[in-house]
């Protein structure tokens, strides 16, 4: 049913993100990375499943937890890693960092340090596609916390009123920073809100990369045909703290470990791939080794890269 290339690509995408994030965590905790960083561990199936329906000409808007989206959209990880280390070879020349990472070469229009800041930008990119009469789509990723921003309302209404090729992808990881989303959110299923805008609202197991891939694929095809926007809610779980170094006083380690053992999208995929004989153990091992090596190279590239020249402070502002 699924081609081997697709299955291997989905798996390697998730593994690449996982290795990348584990590496960031280690070096952040060692004090080598400035600023704040937010990890995507445990949510890999969402970005990978959605972005496998996109081409480099399509657009995505990302979040403060944006490394996974960036990688899934096809960004090279060497300049990404260098950016997160604040180096001049970074994809944003050391001016953005983890929270403001972007790669316009692959249609990744940027992470956003403002929760809920991406919706209207994605709607604008979708509007550009409609005005130019291309079949591009724009996807905005957002969390359950961001679902409560007023920007969602304005963007969803505008996209639906104008039938724009936009896809709103909610990564419901159950935690809005340090607050359980059910204590601050009016509905259990954020997909239910789509009805208020006259667009489809679909919920899917966000830890099942194939389910995400299929569900997003349907909505992306719809958008490309000019049938308008949709909301896809991917139910997942934030395994790590809100940011690296978060003392996580709001939940227990046991609770997290139990959830992760049941919901790790990579483990779930591996089990299924072996059981269904999609990919053998040796193939899975080979993908993991390959991705680990790529991340090692990216780390070496970042750490050996120079910091920006101080005069870079004044560049990239105006013409």
């Amino acid at each position, binding site marked *: 049913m699924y081609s081997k290339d697709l299955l291997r690509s989905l798996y390697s995408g998730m593994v690449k993100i996982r290795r990348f994030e584990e590496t960031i965590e280690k070096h952040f905790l060692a004090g080598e990375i400035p600023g704040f960083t937010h990890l995507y561990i445990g949510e890999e199936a969402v970005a990978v499943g959605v972005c496998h329906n996109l081409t480099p000409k399509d*657009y995505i*808007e990302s979040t403060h937890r944006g490394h996974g989206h960036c990688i899934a959209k096809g960004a090279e990880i060497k300049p990404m890693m260098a950016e997160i280390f604040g180096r001049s070879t*970074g*994809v*944003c*020349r*050391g*001016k*953005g960092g983890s929270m*403001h990472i*972007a*790669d*316009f*070469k692959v249609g990744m*229009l*940027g992470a*956003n*340090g*403002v929760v809920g*800041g991406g*919706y*209207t*930008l*994605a*709607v*604008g*990119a*979708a*509007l*550009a*596609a409609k*005005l*130019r009469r291309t079949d*591009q789509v*724009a996807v905005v990723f957002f969390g359950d916390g961001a679902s409560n921003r*007023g*920007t969602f309302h*304005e*963007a969803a*209404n*505008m996209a639906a*009123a104008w039938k724009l090729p936009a896809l709103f992808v909610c990564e419901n990881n159950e935690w809005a920073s340090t607050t359980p989303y059910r204590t601050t959110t009016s509905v259990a299923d954020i997909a239910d809100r789509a009805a208020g805008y006259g667009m489809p609202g679909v919920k899917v197991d966000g830890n099942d990369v194939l389910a995400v891939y299929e569900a997003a694929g349907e909505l992306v095809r719809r958008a490309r045909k000019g049938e308008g926007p949709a909301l896809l809610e991917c139910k997942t779980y934030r395994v790590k703290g809100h940011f690296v170094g978060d003392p996580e006083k709001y939940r227990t380690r046991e609770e997290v470990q139990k959830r992760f053992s049941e919901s790790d999208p990579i483990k779930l995929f591996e089990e299924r791939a072996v059981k269904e004989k999609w990919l053998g153990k040796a193939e899975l091992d080979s993908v993991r080794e390959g991705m680990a090596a790529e991340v090692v190279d990216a780390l070496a590239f970042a750490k050996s890269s120079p910091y920006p020249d101080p005069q870079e402070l004044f*560049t*990239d*502002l*105006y*013409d």
Partner: protein
Amino acid sequence: MKNITFSQATLEAMQEEMLRDESVFVMGEDIARQGGIFGQFKDLPQMVGADRVMDTPISETAIVGAAVGAALAGMRPVADMHFADFFGVCMDEVFNQMAKIRYMFGGQTKVPVVVRAPDGMAKGAAAQHSQSVESWFVHIPGIQVVAPSNPADAKGLLKSAIRSDNPVIYFENKTLFPLKGDVPEGECLTPIGKAAVCREGRDMTIISYSAQLLKCLEAAKLLADEGISAEVLDLRTLSPLDTDAILTSVVKTSRVMIVHEAVKQGGVGAEVAAIIAEEALDALDAPVARLGAPFTPVPFSPVLEDQYRVLPAQIVAAAKKLF
């Protein structure tokens, strides 16, 4: 030359730029069917095509955010704010997104957005429809701010703003829309970042911009009757300020007053005064004078609204104190 209103001048700019470049489009509330609440977009859909002139939902956040997003995707959007006061609704999109994206992404993209913002006091519109909020934006790196005072610059600055790869906020004072003035035939581009001496003088400099500049020109005539030759400098662009033009005039006249319709406290006049103090204190024969609105919201009742304005008589009185 042709004699047209400020409003017609902005419409000509829109029409010419939209016909010249099909990546330019405009969206805002009440602009396509209504023609803009001040008539400034009248018949634009017929002139350039209906698909590029869009009536939006009442959603300032989405208007500015979508303009920015469309710019990231290669378009050159013009967003209309309806009233400058509504910047309050969409400040994140203006100062965290539009102003920052080019810089924080290391120059991977440019953000060629123009936000048109009708501002200023008109006909008792009161506290939430009358403000002059330009100084907020002068404090934000990454955007440029212009504020024409006459039809020629209205056209020239709007065309330059649309062609600029920088985000530009275009303040257009509501009282200026019906005023007529000479506009050159053919291509008319006013450079961003350049002030203009609109009346030569020897004894003092009055620095202003937008609608308040007209009051300063009236005051300069009254001062001439009293034997004071006032030079009037129209800043035209508020960010980046034309420091050379400011200092050249101040050094020439040795006395200076800055006048704006906006609240005096923390206004553009404060920045101009500080530049003069830093760069040309020795040239001054009198302290820098500043006139602006009092530190209150804009009131409603005509009696109170008149009290709020900086009128030519006050400019004349303050000018005489410099001698």
